[in-house]
């Protein structure tokens, strides 16, 4: 008498299951919301503003935050609340334009260097290194001389032209790395042309890191604009931006008008932190593996 449980039934092949999906990084929702809360009103500044940001109400200079002036007024009697949104738009525009220019330059020079013959690569990277060795603010000061009066546009160009160096080095290393990839090699063997490789293999794999670099570039451009305007070498006082608002801060210190110093700076800081968070997410930094220590 045989036990049915001991009947030979053999293998029951299961479909080869693919390993499960990697755990994705949670997108930084709260950061995105916070950033939207700053950026959207900036874009729609006209709707949000309560007063004309350029109007100097000399009767109300350095008014502390109150119901009428939510964020107070500066030493020229301008309403800081309105200026924040209006100036934010200008700061972000400068950052954006400068990033576009710098990214384009970095892409061109970095990939040229990676794909060019060795001597040209060495020369390009050497020049990049030399330009990198001068604090970029100094280069900006030189370049600004070309434009007598700074405008949003000229400042963006200057910041763009001085911002590509670090990025182009990274682009070069990335492109070199990708070029040596086995899947690129495989595609080349199958007869993929240069442009095919560029379009189908290089670009899709390159875009995430490019996005990260661009975001970081945006951060430094916004910061540079603020620094320059603060010192009085960026946007003039009449062109309201977060930086030019802060150029009044040093005088405000004497009267301990903290709101003139703190509020534009806080907006600047929060925006930059949000941007950095998003940049880090784009790069998908994950420490691989377990620590052995």
């Amino acid at each position, binding site marked *: 008498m045989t036990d049915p449980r001991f009947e030979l039934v053999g293998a029951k092949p299961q*479909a*080869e299951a*693919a*390993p*499960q*999906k*990697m755990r994705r990084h949670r997108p930084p929702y709260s950061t995105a919301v916070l950033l939207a809360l700053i950026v959207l009103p900036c874009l729609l500044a006209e709707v949000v503003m309560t007063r004309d940001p350029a109007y100097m109400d000399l009767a109300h200079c350095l008014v502390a935050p109150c119901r009428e002036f939510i964020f107070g007024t500066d030493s020229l009697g301008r309403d800081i609340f309105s200026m924040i949104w209006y100036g934010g738009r200008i700061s972000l525009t400068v950052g954006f334009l400068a990033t576009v220019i710098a990214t384009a330059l970095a892409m061109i020079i970095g990939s040229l260097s990676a794909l060019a013959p060795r001597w040209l690569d060495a020369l390009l990277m050497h020049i990049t290194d030399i330009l990198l060795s001068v604090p970029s603010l100094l280069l900006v000061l030189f370049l600004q001389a070309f434009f007598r009066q700074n405008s949003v546009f000229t400042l963006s160009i200057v910041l763009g032209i001085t911002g590509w160096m670090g990025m182009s080095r990274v682009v070069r290393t990335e492109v070199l790395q990708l070029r040596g*990839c*086995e*899947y690129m*090699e*495989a*595609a080349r*063997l*199958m*007869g*993929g042309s240069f442009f*095919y490789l560029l379009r*189908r*293999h290089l670009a*899709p*794999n390159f875009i995430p890191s490019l996005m990260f670099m661009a975001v970081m570039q945006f951060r430094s451009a916004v910061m540079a604009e603020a620094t320059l305007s603060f010192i009085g070498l960026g946007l003039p006082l009449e062109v309201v931006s977060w930086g030019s608002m802060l150029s009044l801060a040093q005088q405000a210190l004497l009267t301990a008008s903290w709101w003139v110093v703190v509020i534009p700076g806080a907006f600047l800081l929060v925006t930059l932190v949000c941007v950095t968070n998003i940049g880090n997410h784009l790069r998908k930094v994950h420490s691989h593996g377990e620590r052995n220590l």
Partner: protein
Amino acid sequence: MSEALLSIRDVHYTHRLSGGVSVPALRGVSLELQPGEIVGIVGESGCGKSTLARAVMGLLAPQKGEICYNGINVHHPQNMAEKRCLQQQRQMIFQNAALSLDPHFSVEEIICEPLRLAQLAPQQGSYREEAAYWLQQVGLDALFLSRRPQQLSGGQAQRVAIARALAARPRLLVADEPIAALDVSLQAQIVNLLRRLQREQGFGMLFIAHDLAMVRHLCHRVAVIYQGRLVEIAPTAELFRAPRHGYTKALLSAMPLPDPRQEKQRQPQYYEQPVSDGGVWHQASPQHYWLAEDGEVGE
């Protein structure tokens, strides 16, 4: 003798590293591969066997010697048609399959890529059906079509790589250590798969491996490379039965056997002599050649 599918004539290649250092990788290798034949290339790591594979694929240009596929010089195709022919009829699989698959492609796109590039019409109707057909050929379910390479295990990735290589219906497949990174049981799966597909499709194959165990079950002939030189070449059974070159003997004696009694008594032979540029070829039997050092007496 029929026209060889692949002929490698006296190929020399030296790696030029930065700082003016040069490392010789291949020192005069000659080899012929007939259509539908599987030739195994065996040797220790760094002996130049991967360099040979890459030279055959045209990824490196040898400093001396020439490599012809079907009479076409691999490094200097005469016209567009020859170039096309090379690109379609000669395919490669790599040691680390996962790295040879673009992480942004789906399995379907990966398998169809060579077809699209060679502008070959899919034989199974649509590209998707063609990809499903090849997946089934390598023993994977059609469910995998939409997967990405990160979602594949090592063995699965290697199967997809094989499917991609075969989708273009090549006449020559170069396999650069396709099983070295896999577990023993998976190695057997891949070797069986390659063998079955080779029987069905009839392509010639250059199979590169560092160990003899699997080569024996796959290859018709085996070439042994040592320090950048071909030292022995023979039909598989013959090589295993009567190896001649000292290195081949060492290689064979080093193969571990699943037999503790025998293993515990075994005295492996080692071979560590350098191989010179000279040497004389001896013929041990019609297809069995081996390289003897000057002064070494061949039978």
